[in-house]
Structures are given as C-alpha cells and as structure tokens.
C-alpha cells in the first residue's frame, strides 16, 4: 500500500487529511506535516523524513502531496524523491479522495493519476452546470 504524506503551510495538511477521512472513512498510513511560517526549512525537512519513514515502513512506496511547487513544503520534500518516493504538488481534496481508492497500484502510475484527477476536478461552477450560458 502506498503511504501518504501531505506537506503544506500552516494547518492545511492536517485539515485536508481530516476532511478526507470524514468523507472516505479510514485512511491508514497517512500523515500530515505542517511547515511553520517561521521555519527555515530544517525542521520541516526532518519532519518529512520522519513522516516518510512512518508511512513507508519496511521500504514501501510513499506519495508526498505538497501544496505549491516552489514553496518550502515542496522544496524540503524534493531531496526525498527516489524510486519509492514520488511527489505531486498542488494537493486538493479530490486528489486525496482519488488516492484513497488507488493505493495498491504502482507508485508512478498513481502519481500521474492523482495529478490528472486533481486537475480535472477543478471547475468553474457556472460553466460546468450551465454550459449553454457560458
């Protein structure tokens, strides 16, 4: 099973995971890493390392979902990129819902699927619900 680490600024990671759990029920081997606004990155990097070790116990695959490409949460995660650790940026709730159902497939395949579903799940409501008026 693919372990999940959500890394972001402030309390967003915890709350995103809490929302996902409320919707899909149990979400095992998933942890949140909050990057403090005052952290220079060293604390966050150590926390990401611990989180990967926790959810990827025994050398299992881990998908790290970060908030924004180029931000500190992503930057401190990038050094862990490897064959067993992939990183997808721009985490949103639809991505977590999708990921919860696809944790037994190969890591690279799941990373791309999660990216694609995350993108596809963004709508301008008026356009989606009333296409004739858009």
């Amino acid at each position, binding site marked *: 099973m693919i372990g999940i680490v959500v890394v972001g600024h402030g309390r967003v990671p915890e709350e995103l995971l809490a929302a996902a759990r409320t919707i*899909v029920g149990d979400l095992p081997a998933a942890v949140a890493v909050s990057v403090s606004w005052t952290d220079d990155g060293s604390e966050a990097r150590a926390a990401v390392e611990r989180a990967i070790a926790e959810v990827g116990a025994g050398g299992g695959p881990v998908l790290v979902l970060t908030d924004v490409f180029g931000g500190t949460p992503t930057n401190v995660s990038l050094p862990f990129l490897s064959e067993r650790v992939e990183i997808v940026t721009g985490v949103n709730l639809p991505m977590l819902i999708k990921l919860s159902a696809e944790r037994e497939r190969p890591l690279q395949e799941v990373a791309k699927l999660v990216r694609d*579903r995350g993108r596809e799940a963004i709508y301008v409501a008026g356009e989606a619900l009333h296409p004739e008026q858009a």
Partner: protein
Amino acid sequence: MIEREVLVRNRLGLHARAAARFVNTAARFRSRVTLARDSRRADGKSILGILLLAASRGSRLWLEVEGPDESEAAAALEALVSGGFGEGAA
C-alpha cells in the same frame, strides 16, 4: 439491467459524505452502477464522478444497475438514497 428513478431527500443533497456512502455500498456488489441526472452520467463507484451530478435535495436521479447481483445492488442503493443516506430527510 435494472433501472429506476430515485429521489434525493436529505437536506444536504448528494454531498461528499453521502457520495462516499453510495460508492461504499455500490462497491459491495459486482454489478456496474451508473447514476444519471438529466444528461449527466456518473460511474456509481466513483465519489468524484457522483459529486459532479450536483444533485441537491429534491433532485431525481436515474439509477442503472447491471450485473450478476443487480437486484440486490439496486435494492440496497435505492434504500440508501431514499433513506436520505442515513441522514434523515429533515
């Protein structure tokens, strides 16, 4: 194939947790489940797909179930939706 109309009765409509309950129920069966609202169709085993139906309270949905256990699946799903997803109709 079994087809029937179901009415969304709970106050919050077919929201995220309700969609998850629908998918969890559908996943217990081998049959293919499709939920449709007007011209939109969604895989009944996909939470994100069902959410796209944007079915608020009072929406009429078209349920299609096809497979070896279609009658049990259709009965369970109809009961779930008609029962307000366990949230009550109030």
